[in-house]
């Protein structure tokens, strides 16, 4: 309860800060905070279901099915289970709060083992680990109470062998389960850093929340089972070697005897207890599943597409319009959502595209298109500059660099991280661990933006080609169309003007970026593929972002060249760029 109270306090403080901030943050609170709250609510609602499954599995007996079912039903209605559920709700709330606090859209990749160690020992991370240890113990306490039997309490009555009097002894099984919870909590927190658990990536396809959750559920269950088995194995080994210390400490502090008639658990025979290992594994699975489900729901909710108005009717909503949010610098997640929205509208929504290409109503300026294209172009050129700076840095001391980053001997140092670290070094950006590393060049903003970038061309080109043909085409046919057609035609003419002015910029920007990326792939390690991870909750897609960037760039240019075709010759760009585009026109790239 104390935890819940603390959580509520912190949330209140958060909200207050949010209210104190200017308007641009209001939308952040409207969108992201509410989504986080909704995801936590769903996680809490799912708790009874997972608990029921856990109860069924923990009391499983093959030969007495009827007794098993009736036991479980009565247990589910018992007051101890209700109390456990309340505690678990608290755990889920804190997990959800940590998700909201720690989530990042840009993966943090430590340059070396020392950097990783620094990240793990960072005070913020230490607090995180401590909280997760506590939560692990809490969940495991609930689990041990639910399983009941020999696990239920810390102290048991036992008879001393020599004197025969009844004393309170330490229940080692209970201690074992509790320590396992702390161990799993710490390993979850540690692996969260190593696997970038808090990295939220946007999906290549859009799905509704429920189908997406349903699709991810088997993966999450599988991951939590595997992770629980690994943790159970590691904890058993840990307890075998170091179990003596906590046992004697607890027994001396709480003045509990150690029952010498029972087999001690920090021995080989004590650990080879199938029932104990089974209960340890399913409790671990339950623990991980609770946490992973919260993470999964948070990811699903945060990355859900949000539709920003292209043009705001009222001035008070102006901060929420797409161009404004695109230019957002502080809250990265809103920028990402805006870019995702831009990509979606460019592909699927004709009416909103028309809004983008429309002219302002008095004045006749193409504010929407200009703002959006300017923002996209600045992102692209920023990326280009960063790549070029990185290449210069490598070129100046390339030899030293390539020697100082040895081959992939360290499993943690995937090519992605090597690459990223050198960039980080060049920009001296990775000084503060866990601050969102905005400077990493292959973070997904660049990518998603490109997806968004590519398609504003195509719709405008659907409309652009028609004026072209119209100009050459027979005059009488134009003349004979009705008033509505005329309006449409002039409208598309205007659009053409709008896009034409920015087209050379867009093309040259894309080509320069492509050249930079091509050069980048000539660097050592850049074109080698990262090792695939088999099953983990961490999202490892960031390791292949550079391949994605290259593929998307090429597709983008192809998209423009195929739609424009020969008309590209009329676009005013430099000769080298024209040569490069010619290759694309001939499908030679």
């Amino acid at each position, binding site marked *: 309860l104390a935890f819940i109270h603390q959580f509520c306090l912190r949330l209140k403080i958060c909200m207050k800060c949010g209210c104190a901030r200017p308007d641009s943050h209001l939308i952040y609170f409207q969108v992201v905070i509410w989504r986080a709250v909704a995801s936590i609510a769903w996680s809490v609602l799912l708790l009874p279901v997972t608990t029921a499954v856990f109860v069924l599995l923990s009391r499983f007996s093959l030969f007495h099915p009827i007794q098993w079912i009736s036991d479980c039903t009565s247990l589910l209605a018992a007051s101890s289970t209700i109390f456990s559920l309340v505690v678990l709700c608290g755990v889920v709330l804190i997990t959800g709060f940590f998700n909201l606090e720690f989530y990042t859209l840009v993966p943090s990749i430590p340059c070396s083992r020392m950097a990783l160690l620094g990240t793990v020992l960072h005070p913020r991370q230490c607090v995180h680990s401590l909280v997760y240890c506590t939560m692990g113990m809490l969940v495991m306490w609930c689990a041990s109470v639910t399983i009941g039997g020999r696990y239920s309490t810390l102290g048991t009555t036992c008879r001393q062998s020599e004197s025969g009097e009844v004393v309170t002894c330490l229940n080692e099984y209970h201690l074992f389960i509790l320590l396992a919870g702390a161990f799993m909590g710490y390993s979850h927190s540690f692996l969260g850093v190593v696997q970038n658990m808090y990295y939220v990536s946007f*999906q*290549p*396809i*859009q*799905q*509704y929340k429920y*189908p997406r959750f*349903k*699709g991810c559920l088997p993966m999450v269950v599988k991951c939590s089972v595997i992770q629980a088995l690994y943790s159970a194995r590691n904890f058993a080994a840990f307890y075998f070697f170091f179990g003596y210390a906590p046992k004697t400490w607890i027994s001396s502090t709480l003045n509990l005897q150690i029952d010498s008639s029972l087999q001690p658990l920090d021995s080989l025979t004590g650990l080879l207890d199938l029932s104990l290992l089974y209960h340890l594994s399913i409790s671990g699975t339950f623990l991980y599943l609770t946490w992973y489900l919260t993470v999964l729901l948070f990811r699903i909710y945060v990355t859900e597409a949000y539709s920003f108005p292209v043009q705001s009717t009222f001035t008070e909503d102006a901060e929420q319009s797409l161009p404004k949010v695109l230019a957002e610098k502080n809250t990265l997640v809103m920028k990402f959502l805006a870019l995702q929205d831009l990509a*979606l509208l460019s*592909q*699927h929504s004709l009416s909103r595209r028309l809004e983008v290409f429309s002219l302002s109503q008095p004045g006749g300026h193409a504010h929407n298109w200009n703002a959006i294209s300017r923002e996209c172009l600045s992102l692209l050129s920023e990326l280009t500059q960063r790549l070029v700076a990185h290449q210069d840095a490598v070129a100046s001391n390339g030899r030293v660099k390539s020697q100082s980053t040895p081959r992939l001997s360290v499993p943690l140092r995937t090519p992605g991280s090597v690459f990223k670290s050198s960039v980080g070094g060049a920009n001296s950006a990775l000084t503060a661990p866990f601050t969102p590393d905005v400077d990493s060049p292959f973070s997904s903003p660049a990518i998603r933006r490109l*997806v968004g970038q*590519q*398609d504003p061309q195509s719709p405008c080109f659907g409309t652009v080609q028609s004026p072209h043909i119209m100009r050459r085409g027979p005059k009488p*046919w134009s003349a004979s169309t009705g008033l509505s057609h005329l309006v449409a035609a002039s409208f598309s003419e205007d659009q053409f003007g709008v896009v034409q002015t920015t087209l050379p910029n867009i093309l040259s920007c894309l080509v320069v970026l492509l050249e930079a990326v091509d050069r980048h792939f000539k660097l050592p390690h850049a074109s080698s*593929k990262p090792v*695939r991870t088999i099953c983990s909750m961490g999202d490892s*897609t960031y390791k*292949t*972002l550079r*391949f*994605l960037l*290259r*593929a*998307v760039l*090429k*597709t983008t240019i*192809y*998209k423009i060249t*195929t739609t424009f075709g020969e008309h590209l010759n009329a676009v005013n760009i430099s000769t080298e760029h024209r040569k490069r585009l010619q290759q*694309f026109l*001939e*499908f*030679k*790239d």
Partner: protein
Amino acid sequence: MFPSPVHIYTDGSDAEDHVSSAFVIRHQKKRNIHHQTQLSLAANAIILAGVVCVWLQPCDLPSPQFTRDTLKGHSRPESSSRSAFLDQRDTLWMRSAGAWRDAGLYGLLDEITNSAEEVPRFLAVGSACVLALLRWASSFHGSLFPHLTLSSDEMVAEFSQMLDWSDSALRSFAWHPHTDKFAVALLDDSIRIYKSNSSATPTLKHRCQRSVCALQWKPLCGSALAVACQSCLLIWHVDPTSLSTRPSSGCAQVLSHPGHSPITSIAWSPTGSLLVSASPVDTGMMVWDVAAESAVPLQRVGGGGVTYLSWSPDGSRLLAATPSALFRVWETRMWTCERWPCLKGSCQSACWSPDGGCLLLSMQGERVIYALTFSDLTGGSKAASVVADLSETSFPGPDGDLTVGGEVCSLSWDPRGERLAVLLKGDSQAVNHPSVIAVFKTRSSPVFELLPCGFVMGEAGAEPRFMQFHPHFQHGALLTVCWSDGRISHVPFYFSSAGLLGGDSPQQALASNTADHSSNKLYTEQIS
């Protein structure tokens, strides 16, 4: 680019007026949304005018021929080569490990059951029981979905778009969507790439490239070719400017997912951003982000697997056929699907109209073409309608009566939406009943119309196995056909598109078509 030496193919334009007046029955549907034309081959004498046997090559497109003798298929699977070696008794542990590696749980249980004298009795009995239970479960599952009892190769042969896949020297074929090059997968598990005006034919070989079932070039890309193999999905990056004839296997990306093999169909989205793959044993289809090598499974219960995928040209919808009498149409914005249960067989082949508004389907064992319409405003049709009945009809041909018609095996619609090619299965027992490709003229506005245009037949003994239209033929449509004798030929249809002339009225378009073809001969010589 494709000089037309002789105008070879008749479009049957002269007959068109008669066809439309006498035999085409138009009727409007209840909701007045979509007009349709029902057409029957039976008693249609006029189509006779269009019966031609064509064998021609536009000059500069390569048309290679492959025979089974020159290609060595991969020999038997590794397990069957065991008989060539002397039997060596390993220890039980070694054998169990080998069985686990080769054949998984089944193999392990089988091995333990078979060596009952070496293992404790309870283990042998237990494994025999588990094995029996597993077999019973799988046969039960198999009785629900009979295709699951097939072996991997049989499954590929069953669901490949190439007819008679296992017997054919050609395994798959794909045109590049933007340039004049195509890829052919062959019996020996290699892939060759042919370009016009170039003699270099790169050959692609890879360790994982077994039993190629489908090929597709990535749209909006010059180099990437996706290959559906028995165990995985390969993405080749063949540099178009390179002169190398054997690109190394380092140029290929291997994408695989446990439980998702053999892959029988793949489809790139028209923007080239996503690749969808399907396997008859996996109820989910995989949506791949190829560059990131990550996949999102889209799972739906029912159907027992996914056999055939086809993306609509505008990218808004995706057809997914299953081995059972059910197919689904996914919309690609939020990835939800419509379920379409069929009455009889499974969906065999399908093609989309260029605007993505109409889907033509053929069902296994049926002699009709179904049409489905989709519309964002009205939601489209609620039931598939029969647009053509293609049951057997006999025509007096050049040498005796010719029976045409039968099961619709494959459908292909040219990218302009003016010609539809339908592969009709013949009867190998009957004398004059070969497999033919029937070609129809199509028009989608103002009413959907199918007008018979002619037949394409091969040389004596050669049957069509696969066909695909060239994606961007300048002078009309170009149909590429793979024949059973290992030959690839190109059949051009020269016409000027009604849409390009801006013909608002069908009369105008008709007039222009007729004028264009007024000089055509109705019968053409067979050139070989």
